């Protein structure tokens, strides 16, 4: 990339540019870019539309951007809104605004503080959610942490799954080594206030199947829970539990059938 890294695109009013190799692409007004771009830095403060694939070291979206192709970045921060029609590959992804991806999302660190909706699979080493996430397919990670609201239509598969419930969380299937689902303990005045207005008893996880080595559940509705050591905490409704080593049941948990294997 060094050889042509001299050229920059900077659009401050409204304009169009063609694809190619650039050092920096900066949009302050509104821009349309035709073709594939390869650049060190892509920054959009206004609104932009890219008709092609993008390969960049660093992408920052403060305004709104629509990528029609695939996006491959080392680091990406979305403070505004980004729509990606293709796949997104990014080592460090941070979504503070809103984003929607029609393809798959892969990366090392995937952090969502705003909202994200993904049609394809999500896979990363670390997935951390404090906002709202919708995934239409599967989600795979070494560690999955959620303090927000998520809905996964496929399988959530992670080495360690740590969920603090906030409103309604949902996954079709959950599998991993250690799985922990707890009700949020945080009782700051602000959260209490929000909860008062929304609804009070809606913190809940719904899943059809939960399988893992060590499972701790609170306020979880599931058809089957299978594992080595299982604790079913308060507020759970589980139709069937299959365990290998130990099972602990809270007195406020409803369990249909239990079986030691």
């Amino acid at each position, binding site marked *: 990339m060094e050889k042509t890294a001299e050229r920059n695109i900077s659009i401050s009013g409204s304009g169009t540019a063609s694809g190619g190799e650039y050092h920096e692409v900066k949009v302050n007004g509104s821009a349309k870019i035709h073709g594939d771009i390869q650049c060190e830095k892509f920054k959009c403060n206004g609104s932009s539309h890219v008709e092609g694939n993008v390969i960049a070291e660093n992408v920052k979206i403060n305004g709104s951007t629509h990528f029609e192709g695939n996006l491959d970045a080392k680091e990406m921060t979305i403070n505004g809104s980004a729509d990606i029609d293709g796949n997104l590959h990014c080592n460090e992804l941070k979504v503070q605004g809103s984003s929607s991806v029609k393809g798959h999302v892969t990366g090392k660190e995937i952090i969502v503080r705003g909202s994200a909706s993904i049609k394809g699979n999500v896979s990363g080493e670390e997935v951390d959610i404090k906002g709202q996430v919708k995934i239409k397919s599967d989600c795979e990670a070494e560690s999955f942490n959620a303090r927000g609201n998520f809905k996964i239509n496929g399988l959530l598969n992670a080495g360690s799954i740590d969920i603090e419930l906030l409103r309604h969380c949902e996954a079709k299937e959950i599998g991993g080594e250690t799985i922990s689902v707890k009700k949020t303990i945080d009782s700051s005045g602000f959260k209490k206030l929000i909860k008062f207005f929304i609804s009070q008893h809606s913190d809940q996880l719904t899943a059809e199947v939960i399988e893992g080595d060590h499972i701790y559940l609170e306020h979880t509705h599931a058809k089957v829970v299978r594992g080595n050591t299982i604790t079913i905490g308060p507020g759970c409704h589980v139709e*069937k539990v299959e365990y290998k080593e130990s099972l602990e049941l809270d007195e406020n948990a409803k369990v249909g059938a239990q079986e030691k*294997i």
Partner: protein
Amino acid sequence: MDNLISKKDLLEAANISYGQLYRWKRKNLIPENWFIRKSTFTGQETFFPREDILHRVEKIKTLKDDLSLDELAAMFSPSPTVTSLPTEEIIKRNIVSHTSLEMYINHFGETPTFSFSHLLTLYVLDSLLQTGEMNRSEGMDLLRILEEQANTIKETESELFFIRKMGVSFFIITPEPAKLFVESQTKMIAHYRMNQCIEELKLKIN
């Protein structure tokens, strides 16, 4: 259901935990299409092709102390780990027999290096010759079909059949899983799964 095994039975038979199974799935050590979801009277359950999964799990368990999970994944994936190998190396490391190599060179001419797909062709030729079930002229037919279908083998998981009836023999390459029915006088001499050949070859090379 005979050739399928439920997840529960698999864990018990192979003595592994849910966590391990999910980790291996994440690392692509177990192909997605082996997870077969079926509704049973106890609800949704996952089944696996019995032979394949037991074989695979056994392999992972024996190799996982020596290789990292990523290295294992590379071994099981149909894409090659090594792009090419020099001809001398093949002779020196005794990857295939001398006869097979000679046949290959007679057919295609001398080459200083073998690409992975050529190596695979060579490897399959050698294994079939070693069984003693295939003669040299049939070996030439095999070389031809493998060469022609090199792309199919690379892109899709395929199977190779070697069939003979009343002294006439032929080869079939078909995508996996194939269901082939043959009449009674026909003899199925060999049935190879190319993916398994690729795995074996990778193990031999590394």
